[in-house]
């Protein structure tokens, strides 16, 4: 393994080591505030009652599901074009996190769906496209697993991630393109949010908490992966000497 490969990552490890505790702390604080506001402060909905509180987990999780895939695609592009080794690492590390958020969005959505729509699941465009997003994550991770050579696997997975990125806009706009059961966007839309501030604030704080949680996990996974690679390189060097 060449020298420049480690020069950068070493600096990264140091930096990440410093950022990580802050991100972790921030996550805890934001989560505490967010949960307090969401579960206790925020009013119950006049239609939905207390089930509306699922929203404070469901919506940020759904946002993160899409955000993580975008992050994954951008990191893959950087890895493929500029061959930046950290981008490769970041892409690999973000996939399982994104998959978990997607799973969370699916599960909370289903739990919400049972009282709201009367079934756990409907095959409407948004729900289906999120399910497909989940499969894309799985495919991406499976490809990493299936190819033994780390560098090759990284490039192959990056190609897949870029091709799969077409799905993200489909999810985002599916509610507008097909008439579905699912709610259209009321927060992230062009002409400003259309939701009462008493619900908006906890929602935004929860979203921020999920975001910092993502950063914490990402840094941890990247450092772990770097260490694994170092150990492997050492072992290889040992074996050949």
């Amino acid at each position, binding site marked *: 393994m060449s020298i420049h490969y480690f020069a950068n990552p070493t600096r990264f490890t140091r930096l990440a080591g410093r950022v990580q505790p802050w991100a972790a702390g921030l996550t805890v604080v934001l989560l505490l505030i967010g949960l307090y506001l969401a579960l206790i402060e925020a009013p119950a909905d006049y239609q939905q009652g207390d089930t509306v509180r699922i929203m404070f987990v469901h919506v940020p999780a759904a946002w993160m599901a899409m955000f993580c895939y975008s992050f994954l695609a951008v990191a893959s592009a950087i890895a493929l074009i500029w061959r930046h080794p950290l981008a490769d690492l970041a892409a690999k590390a973000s996939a399982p996190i994104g998959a978990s958020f997607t799973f969370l969005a699916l599960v909370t959505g289903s739990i919400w769906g049972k009282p709201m729509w009367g*079934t*756990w*699941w*409907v*095959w*409407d465009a948004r729900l*289906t496209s999120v*399910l*497909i997003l989940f*499969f894309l994550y*799985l495919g991406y991770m*499976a490809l990493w*697993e*299936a190819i033994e050579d780390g560098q090759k696997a990284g490039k192959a997975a990056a190609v897949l991630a870029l091709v799969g990125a077409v799905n993200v806009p489909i999810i985002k706009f599916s509610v507008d393109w097909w008439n579905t059961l699912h709610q259209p966007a009321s927060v992230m839309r062009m002409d400003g949010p259309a939701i009462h501030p008493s619900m908006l604030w906890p929602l935004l704080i929860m979203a921020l908490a999920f975001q910092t949680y993502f950063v914490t996990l990402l840094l941890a996974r990247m450092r772990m992966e770097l260490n694994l690679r170092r150990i492997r390189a050492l072992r290889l060097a040992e074996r050949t000497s």
Partner: protein
Amino acid sequence: MKIFLAIISRDMLLAVRQGGATFLALIFFLLTVTLFPLGIGPEPAILARVAPGVLWVAALLAAMLSLDRLFQADFEDGSLEQLTLSGLPLSLIVLAKIITHWLTTGLPLLLAAPVLAVLLNMNDEGFEALLLTMLIGTPALSLIGAIGAALTLTVRRGGVLLSLLVLPLYIPVLIFGVSAIDAAVHGLNAKPHLLLLAALTVAAIPLCPWAAAAAVKLSLE
């Protein structure tokens, strides 16, 4: 017997190592079932109506697609002839491979089927019947499929030929499986259908490994 178990444990190890085959056959099953609502449309009544058929067809296809794993890789890299030379009768070697195939495809399908049944809006009466038919029927899929897999060994990329040979043989399994579930869903007695299905599987246990072994022998010549 020691050799028999050694072959099974080897195949399981390879299945786990080579990209988590277990996990992936399952994924194909999930994906195919997901395609149908996309194609047919989301109406719950229609979905519930076609659910048993869709589930069984998808299971059939998933089992069939993973058939090429059964012998092909071992054939191409010379492992199959080495296995033949292990001293165990060839039909037992084949049986060991069929068992691994069921463990890595039939069993996961069986476990995933209830979840998909919920997604397709199948009613609760059908559940038990679905599980039972899968439990009885999927071993037959592995057994019958082995014959096709062995016959198409020397055909390069025999995948499609394989399906041509195997799918017609799978049809009885499909028919009994679906009719048992349909009967249960409509509150009728599913037992006669289940018995027929069981008869099929029991008949396949001695016959299929023997026929597949003959085909494997041929392909090594």
